[in-house]
């Protein structure tokens, strides 16, 4: 009886190994199952998810206008001090002083892409861009000014 059990044990062990080998042979012979993405080569066809959080950008329209009012909601929402809003006072045509942004400084090196600034923005002035290749040779290049030079606030955004 011991011998029978012994042989049974050996055979069932061999069987389990062969089942595993059959599965790996299947993948060895079926190259269609390969899922490798050849990243730098497929840059042209690479499509990132449209909500992918790559970096914070401020969209401008063709007249070089943005929607940022300088309310600093993003700066307050940010957990890492990534965003610094530097405000100035514009003189409106009616002669009134109006708060506007001078610079919206964004430290990409501190950013954790948590989306809280975009979530907090009341005027949809900033959004997440789908870029992800952020490596540069100088760390200073990671500190960005989000509003373009000489840009203005869009009409009708309060």
């Amino acid at each position, binding site marked *: 009886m011991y011998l029978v059990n012994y042989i049974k044990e050996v055979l069932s062990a061999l069987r389990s190994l062969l089942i595993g080998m059959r599965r790996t042979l299947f993948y060895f012979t079926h190259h269609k199952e390969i899922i490798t993405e050849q990243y730098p080569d497929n840059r042209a066809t690479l499509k990132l998810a449209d909500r992918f959080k790559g970096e914070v950008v401020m969209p401008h329209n063709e007249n070089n206008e943005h929607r940022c009012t300088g309310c600093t909601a993003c700066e307050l929402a940010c*957990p*890492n*001090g990534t965003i610094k809003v530097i405000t100035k006072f514009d003189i409106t045509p009616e002669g009134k002083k109006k708060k506007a942004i001078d610079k919206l400084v964004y430290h990409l090196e*501190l950013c954790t892409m948590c989306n809280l600034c975009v979530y907090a923005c009341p005027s949809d002035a900033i959004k997440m861009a789908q870029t992800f290749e952020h490596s540069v040779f100088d760390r200073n290049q990671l500190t960005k000014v989000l509003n373009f030079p000489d840009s203005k606030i869009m009409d009708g955004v309060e």
Partner: protein
Amino acid sequence: MSNEELKAKLSELIPTATFEEGGEWTTLLIEPKALMEVMPLMRNDVAFNMDYLFCLTAVDWKTHITMVYHLTSTTYRHNLVIKSKLDKSKPEIETVCLIWRSAEFLEREVYELFGVNFINHPDLRLLILPDGWEGKNPLLKDFDDPINMIKL
């Protein structure tokens, strides 16, 4: 047992028991000296059977340090919070790691982050902080991190 039943049973067993109101679970306040009377009772009494210590921590209240023990029972599923106020200048309390083994690591963590000394702990050494750490215990309120990037 519901919170009320727990409370009734507790005040029956421990006449000196005081309770803290407002929390979602029964919160029992005890003296550090009474810890070793209450804790084995909680663990071994058939009615309580608090066999699962799921959270052990401390809170620095500047004037004193409060130890907080969260207990539950895997048979009755009732929860109990036990608190004990320690002296800020010399925080000391008996260990509970002979009752619940999970306390061994949790107490080591509290020891290094708050400086609470656990009497009779079998292996009270630094767990997270690097060997030879000198200076304040990091989770105390007067600990100031010289390079805190996120403090605005």
